[in-house]
């Protein structure tokens, strides 16, 4: 794999161990320029470990990672990759501008880039205030501005919006979209699919160190082939009789739940509508979290003998 393939990031059969614990196992993933990829997984699924390997902080026990053909941690790779860790709190006594100038110098970029970037993320007005006075959303914007120094080829954002309110989160993703539109590939991790819906081109799901899914949201939904759940409420005292007739699972004294493939949903509803014992119907389509859970649980089941 090299620069000519146009891939910004390639991981091939990557494995990382901490003692006997396998933090990552057989992870293969590639990212093209300008692509926004969400890396999902529970705590401890290996997201941060994956990031640290891309940054060259951890050496793979197996497989390899390349950043546009360069070894992680090499000078070329460090210049191409920028990073926003999960929990970062810049020194309270420094101003936003001082933080930005510092990282610009470390990256070998002119300090003049600091102010325009702060303005781009919307905290130009607070550039000369100490970080200790910033709100959580402002601190995270500062972190993002820092990661934008030097127009990186690949931006790693480790759970960048955890703890942000919905407005701050939306603003954050708007900036990420701008960055990606200029050709920077963005790999960001998150706990849930709902947060990154519409915000990413592709979704990769890590579970217990393995990559269990990699594709567009639509493709993953189709692959999961999740079922529609129909909750049928029976007429008074008719739940038992209804259950005998239509099957499914008893939910409580008055309701039955039926599951069916998405394609058969309407036929089933037509049949239920004709039942005189049915008082009401609720249809629950599989949500993003169901898709996420489907793939996460898949790995858990496989892992157990």
């Amino acid at each position, binding site marked *: 794999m090299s620069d000519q393939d146009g891939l910004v990031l390639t991981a091939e059969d990557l494995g990382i161990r901490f003692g006997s614990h396998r933090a990552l196992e057989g992870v293969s993933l590639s990212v093209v320029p300008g692509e926004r990829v969400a890396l999902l997984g529970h705590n401890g699924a290996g997201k941060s470990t994956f990031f*640290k390997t891309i*940054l060259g*902080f*951890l050496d793979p026990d197996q497989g390899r990672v390349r950043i546009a053909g360069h070894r992680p941690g090499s*000078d070329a790779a*460090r*210049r191409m*990759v*920028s*990073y*926003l*860790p*999960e*929990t*970062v*709190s*810049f*020194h309270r*006594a*420094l101003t936003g501008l*001082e933080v930005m100038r*510092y*990282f610009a*110098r*470390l*990256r*070998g970029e002119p300090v003049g880039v600091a102010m325009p970037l702060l303005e781009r993320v919307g905290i130009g007005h607070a550039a000369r205030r*100490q970080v200790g006075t910033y709100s959580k959303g402002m601190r995270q914007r500062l972190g993002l501005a*820092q990661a934008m120094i030097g127009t990186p080829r690949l931006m790693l954002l480790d759970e960048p919006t955890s703890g942000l309110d919905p407005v701050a989160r939306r603003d954050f993703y708007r900036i990420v979209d701008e960055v990606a539109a200029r050709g920077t590939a963005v790999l960001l991790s998150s706990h849930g699919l709902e947060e990154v819906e519409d915000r990413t081109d592709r979704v990769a799901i890590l579970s217990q160190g393995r990559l269990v899914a990699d594709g567009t949201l639509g493709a993953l939904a189709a692959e999961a082939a999740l079922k529609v759940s129909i909750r049928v409420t029976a007429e008074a005292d008719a739940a038992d009789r209804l259950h005998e007739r239509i099957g499914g699972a008893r939910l409580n004294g008055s309701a039955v739940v039926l599951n069916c493939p998405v394609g058969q949903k309407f036929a089933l509803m037509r049949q239920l509508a004709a039942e005189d014992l049915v008082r009401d119907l609720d249809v629950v389509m599989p949500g993003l979290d169901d898709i996420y859970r489907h793939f996460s649980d898949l790995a858990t089941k496989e892992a157990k003998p």
Partner: protein
Amino acid sequence: MSVATRIAAVCGQEIRIARRNRWVALAFGLLTLFALALTFLGAGQSAVVKADILTIAAASLATLSVYLIPLIALILSYDSLSGEMERGTLPLALATPIRRWELFLGKFLAQTAVVTAAIVAGYAIAGAVAAGLRGADAAGLVAWARLIGTSAGLGAVFVALGMAVSACCSRTGTAAAIAIGLWLVFVVLYDLALLGAVIADNGGVFTKVVFPWLVLANPADAFRIYNLVSLESAPVAGIDGLAHTLPVPPATALAVVGAWLAAALLAGIALTRRLKP
């Protein structure tokens, strides 16, 4: 050159933080206050001992510096890396092209500069006040300059030691505890143990052969002995009696301080390389 730019960037940022945190002001205020107090205590003595006020004050300040300067240096340096680890800014810095030794060196230079500035300013003020009131001779001025120079060296050794501690702790709490432990061992317990051994030995082989070398091996003791050896008229007691019976040239004591500095820096850089951010 990019290496120099990066070291300068780290150094500048650290000095900025030290100034904002009022460490610079605190270290300077503390050293000035103690230096003035001891100088005027010495002024009372100098009439009796018939020595220049600066010479007398240099002797008492050398003894005080052994306690104060390592403490200030360790307080400044113990969280330099562990603090960044805890705040999460260390991985950020290490993701840039900076080398780990550059980061370590930049921080070391900044903190040493802070300690040195406090020592030079504080002791110079006290010296100027004393000389202005009582006058000073050439020997006194030399003693004072020697005190300031070696104090800065002692500060550098303990900044490097504190940073080495900081590089092997991922929590500032642990680093603080170890730093205080280091201070106790080097400055208090080591001397107590030696004194105890000398008393138990009662003038035997240990006292005559081993003891002087053990005293010199401690950078804090080496600093004090070097300053006292050079002040022939200064009153000395306890372990410092060795100042008059030192088996080697006084410069050896300076070499010991230099060796500690080199060792602490190398250890610190090696530990920083091993950090897993």
